[in-house]
């Protein structure tokens, strides 16, 4: 039970029952659960290592650099304060009641400020995420409803697959939508390709994506590399995670740009 709980595989009722059992006090199960969490964390090694783009580190280092001058955080849980500090505090306690009171007030104030800063940071991050999502949705709505957008039907190569629809606006971008798109297997993703009119030119890779669990698909390409006049068709293939430079499989959907 502890392993399944650590894995997150228990159904809601089983999970609630196990947690109630732990709350009631069971040192054996608590220890088993703590060890199971370590065991489960080792499953991360099943995923092949992969290198994130350099931009991730650059953004992180910018954020971290900007925050590096903030008041240092509280000490880690384990590291006890040095003995000399406790001796100093004890001496101060003996010296005056006032200094003790004053120290405590200051500590509480610093702690409050740290908590406020953390809460503000989290709030800001959430708002930024929400803002980005709503901007994207607004842009998609604008493309879909704009009469100047070009409609492109993406027909499946397999008759059992649903058709997809794309709308392309020369300034706003490209949206691909669809329903009942089958789930992909393993490490596979869908990748959009722009097929140039120049027959000698190679297909140009665009975004990679995958359908949601309910089979819905709605993807925005805000800045297609090429404009409509240079592209004769759109195609979608299945590719390994991360996408490919050139298609490695036959198109599942293809649609001419009129």
């Amino acid at each position, binding site marked *: 039970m502890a392993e399944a709980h650590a894995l997150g595989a228990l159904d809601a009722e089983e999970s609630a029952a196990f947690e109630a059992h732990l709350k009631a006090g069971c040192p054996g199960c608590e220890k088993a659960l703590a060890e199971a969490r370590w065991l489960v964390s080792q499953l991360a090694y099943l995923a092949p290592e992969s290198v994130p783009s350099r931009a991730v580190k650059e953004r992180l280092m910018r954020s971290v650099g900007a925050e590096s001058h903030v008041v240092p955080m509280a000490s880690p849980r384990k590291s006890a304060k040095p003995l000399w500090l406790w001796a100093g505090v004890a001496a101060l306690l003996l010296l005056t009641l006032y200094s003790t009171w004053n120290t405590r007030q200051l500590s509480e104030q610093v702690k409050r400020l740290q908590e406020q800063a953390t809460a503000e940071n989290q709030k800001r991050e959430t708002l930024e995420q929400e803002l980005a999502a709503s901007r994207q949705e607004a842009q998609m709505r604008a493309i879909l409803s704009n009469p100047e957008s070009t409609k492109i039907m993406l027909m499946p190569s397999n008759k059992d697959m649903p058709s997809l629809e794309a709308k392309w606006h020369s300034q706003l971008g490209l949206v691909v939508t669809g329903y009942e798109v089958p789930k992909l297997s393993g490490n596979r993703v869908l990748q959009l390709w722009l097929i140039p009119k120049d027959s000698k030119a190679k297909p140009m890779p665009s975004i990679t994506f995958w359908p949601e669990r309910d089979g819905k698909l709605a993807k925005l390409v805000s800045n297609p590399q090429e404009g409509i006049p240079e592209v004769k068709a759109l195609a979608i293939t299945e590719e390994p995670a*991360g996408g490919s430079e050139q298609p490695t499989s036959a198109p599942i959907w293809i649609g001419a740009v009129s």
Partner: protein
Amino acid sequence: MFLAALTSGDYGTVPPDVALVHRLLQRDVRAFEELYDRHSRAVYGLVLRILQQAGTAEEVVQDVFLQLWRNAGRYDETRGPFVSWLFTLARNRALDTLRLKSERQRRREDQTEEFPPVAVAPEYEKELDEKRCAHRVRVLMDSLAPQQKRAIELAYFEGLSHTEIAAALREPLGTVKSWIRNGLLRLKEGMQAAT
């Protein structure tokens, strides 16, 4: 050699993770950069495996390391190895993102603010360095029956419950439960035997 040095206790000039975490508490940017260089590939690999989408995975990796920078004090070195804590944090964030994407829930409380709970490394773990752990886990999991391995992967990488896995694999619920239980038991025994 490099990874072995990190966990064997004979660190030479390479500081262990715990020492770097201590320096994070003093806002040491170079310590943060070193932790990122050391673990970002494994963390990104894990998150990418869960989310299957490079752009979103990179956002989650960025969030995980920012949380590490801002909340390094939440890691308790007495409760287990740093890398397990980091993996658990990354997996939780990635699964939250996966659920958010699928359920269109953008409420703030759905963003996991909880940090990983206690994960105690058993005694035998102290004798296994990170590289050996990774190799051992892969070998042990490959030794399981394909459906059994798939059931564990669905739980770990897709956050599915026993019932959901049984439906996905079209197998009886009891079979799935015993596959997962026995598979993890075999993994545990195999890790012990590796020492």
